[in-house]
């Protein structure tokens, strides 16, 4: 009976749960789904991480290549993030070039890397004007069950922290490039931005870490990226207008989550080193 009710009246079905301050998957309104991190799972990539947020699964792989730097920025390298929402992860995606959502997510990742300054592009230079690193950061969604943004951010940061680059030298005279694959240098990542997403249900209830079903019923969404005590981004694309108190509440919770999540990344990295 519950299944039919959910199918016919998804909103009413949800309301019945929310009246008792609980969500259909047994979570409280402000509770995150269990977060699982697996760092360094792909050995063909220079850095990698798999993140599971409930069912939502994102795999991030970083492939490092070398290229000539831009003429106007001879001392900088490149970071190129791309998010792939493949038809594998959900029936709503079709094969072909990335859709609007994937493009927006890719841009969000690029904005995040730029504003948080967690990678210093000058660290990616090998020889000024001649050679720089290009970090191709590819995020593949393997299971699309809502809140892909938070999962992507976690995967991105974890994979960056896992990245080591082989030593590459350029011969001053001949210009020959030489790689020594035996000496690896870890990439320096200066900070650990964490994203926290909320949806607004029925114009007034805030739910954290929404599932795909909850996202479909949302009347608004908000994503806050925090790092330490600072805010890296507040992204509220339209939807229900929120009161200042609600916004403050979201910021509070995002700051708290950022501490917890960066601790989780730290612990996971430690357990790999051992």
């Amino acid at each position, binding site marked *: 009976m519950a299944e039919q009710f959910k199918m016919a009246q998804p909103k009413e079905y949800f309301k019945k749960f929310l009246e008792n301050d609980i969500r259909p998957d047994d979570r409280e309104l402000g509770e995150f789904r269990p977060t699982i991190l697996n760092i360094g799972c792909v050995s063909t990539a220079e850095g990698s991480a798999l993140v599971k947020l409930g069912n939502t699964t994102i795999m991030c792989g970083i492939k490092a290549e070398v290229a000539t730097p831009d003429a106007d920025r001879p001392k900088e390298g490149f970071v190129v993030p791309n998010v792939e929402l493949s038809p594998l992860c959900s029936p709503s995606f079709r094969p072909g070039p990335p859709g*609007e959502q994937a493009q*927006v997510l890719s841009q969000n990742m690029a904005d995040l890397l730029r*504003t948080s300054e967690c990678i210093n592009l000058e660290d990616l230079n090998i020889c000024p004007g001649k050679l720089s690193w290009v970090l191709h950061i590819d995020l593949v969604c393997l299971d699309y069950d809502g809140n892909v943004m938070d999962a992507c951010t976690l995967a991105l940061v974890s994979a960056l922290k896992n990245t080591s680059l082989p030593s590459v030298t350029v011969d001053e005279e001949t210009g020959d490039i030489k790689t020594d694959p035996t000496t690896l240098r870890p990439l320096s990542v200066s900070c650990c931005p964490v994203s926290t997403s909320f949806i607004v249900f029925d114009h007034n209830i805030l739910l954290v870490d929404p599932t795909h079903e909850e996202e479909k019923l949302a009347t608004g969404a908000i994503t806050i990226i925090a790092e330490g*005590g600072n*805010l890296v981004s507040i992204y509220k694309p339209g939807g229900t207008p929120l009161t200042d108190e609600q916004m403050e509440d979201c910021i509070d919770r995002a700051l708290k989550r950022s501490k917890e999540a960066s601790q989780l990344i730290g612990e996971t990295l430690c357990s790999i080193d051992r």
Partner: protein
Amino acid sequence: MASFTVVKTEDLAAEQGKGPACVLRGQTSDLGCLTRQDGSVSLSQGDTTSIAVVYGPAEVRINKEQIDQATVEVVYRPKVGLPRPEHRKQERVIRNTFEAAIAASLHPRSAISIIIQETEDMGSNFSCCINSSCLALLDAAVSMNFMVAAVTVALKECGEMVLDPTKRDETEAKSVLSYVFDSVNLQVLTVVSCGKFSRAEYRNGLVLAREAAKSVFQFYRESMSKKLLMSQ
């Protein structure tokens, strides 16, 4: 003949007896600047200009049809080149903003399209896009739940805040925040940011932007009333 009206905020401020030191840069609107569209406007905020046109409610593409409400479509055309992921993100924010503002349930199984052409980005381009789209919707007489006004604030390294920043202010600033407010309760509808900032800075920017949003709404009112006077 095209019936267009040009309203300037400088005149407005003078009319209301306020000094010319209005916090926002001078706004100029040209409602009905194009004739074949349902609504069109060319809006300048300082040197930043964008043209927004509205079609609709019109026929909707079958795969985008919604049985209980109108589908809002936004197309953003950059000044040069093809749209890239950054423009898609902009498009999406604008679309989500107007999905909340437009009374879409009045026109089920139809489409309301907003097309924005960036003509000159000299800072605060996002605000200019939102404000021009809102004026174009008013020009097309599309029913709305509320109007929206966008204001951009730049935070400088020294802690100073610049309202409606120019391109130069934006490049010098450590972060740039754009807020969009509704006209009923002046609550926050949309926020987009670029660059790190603290909580207090977010709050201060909000207060400043909210105050400025009132003058944007006043500007809408004046623009519309001038247009209506002209058409009589």
